[in-house]
């Protein structure tokens, strides 16, 4: 039986990672109420299984693993719908933009609204979305992301790479639709 003081210390430390868990749950569920339910259940479970947490390892990754496993348990059907991103191909936004005659950084990235970036992240299949959340948003190392997701580091890297390509593709489509980039650009052959 843990000392009450030790338990409070555990809860206090666990709660320092609340924003990371909440953001992750929000981006996975797209629903603030569902996110709170998920996070609350994750914390209760964490407290119950705190003996299985190894001191000195990454508590944030451990907590995230509990939360996302609960998510996948509850939304099992979603796993089947998780489309593969294999067909994205090698989309390199940077090169695409240069082909279109734009200056990729100053002309485009500076003009994309945060809400559009969030929308592009939300459009990713969940298995790819969570890698972007961990590595890009929360700053996890590949190793910690692999621990949180229960996959090898190589899988983290390949999912991340494909997710970024899909993300860039969405942002490019947005840039074209919103007129940030003129389709065809200067490289377009004139249709005489």
């Amino acid at each position, binding site marked *: 039986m843990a000392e009450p003081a030790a338990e*409070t210390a555990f*809860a206090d430390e*666990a*709660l320092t990672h*609340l*924003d990371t*868990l*909440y*953001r992750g749950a*929000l*981006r996975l569920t797209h629903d*603030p109420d569902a996110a*709170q339910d998920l*996070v*609350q259940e994750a*914390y*209760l479970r964490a*407290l119950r299984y705190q003996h299985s947490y190894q001191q000195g390892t990454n508590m944030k990754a451990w907590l995230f693993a509990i939360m996302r496993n609960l998510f996948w348990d509850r939304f099992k059907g979603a796993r089947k719908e998780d489309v593969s991103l294999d067909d994205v191909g090698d989309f390199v*936004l*940077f090169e695409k933009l240069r082909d279109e005659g734009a200056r*990729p*950084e100053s002309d485009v*990235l500076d003009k*994309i609204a*945060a*809400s559009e*970036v*969030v929308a592009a*992240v939300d459009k990713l299949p969940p298995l790819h979305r969570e890698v*972007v*959340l961990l*590595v*890009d*948003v*929360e*700053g996890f*190392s*590949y190793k910690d992301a692999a621990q949180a997701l229960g996959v090898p580091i190589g899988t983290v*890297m390949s999912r*991340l*790479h494909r997710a*970024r390509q899909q*993300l*860039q593709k969405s942002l490019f489509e947005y840039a074209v639709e919103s007129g940030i980039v003129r389709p065809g650009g200067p490289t377009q052959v004139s249709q005489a």
Partner: protein
Amino acid sequence: MKCQECADKLDRFVDRELTNTEALEVQLHLEGCPDCMEHYEFQEHLKRLVKHSCDCDVAPVAFREKLRQILS
């Protein structure tokens, strides 16, 4: 280092996942190659953009308080 090798390592360079030696090799290539440098700066900027677009959501104060009470 060739541009292709640099491109292959760009993800890991941006994510600070290369060994010190590898990172130094990429750094040296970037300093001598404006094309790759521009690509690197773009990727770095995109990563920052993703972070700052998504990290502004924080847990509501009332929810944090509720959890604190449940867990203590």
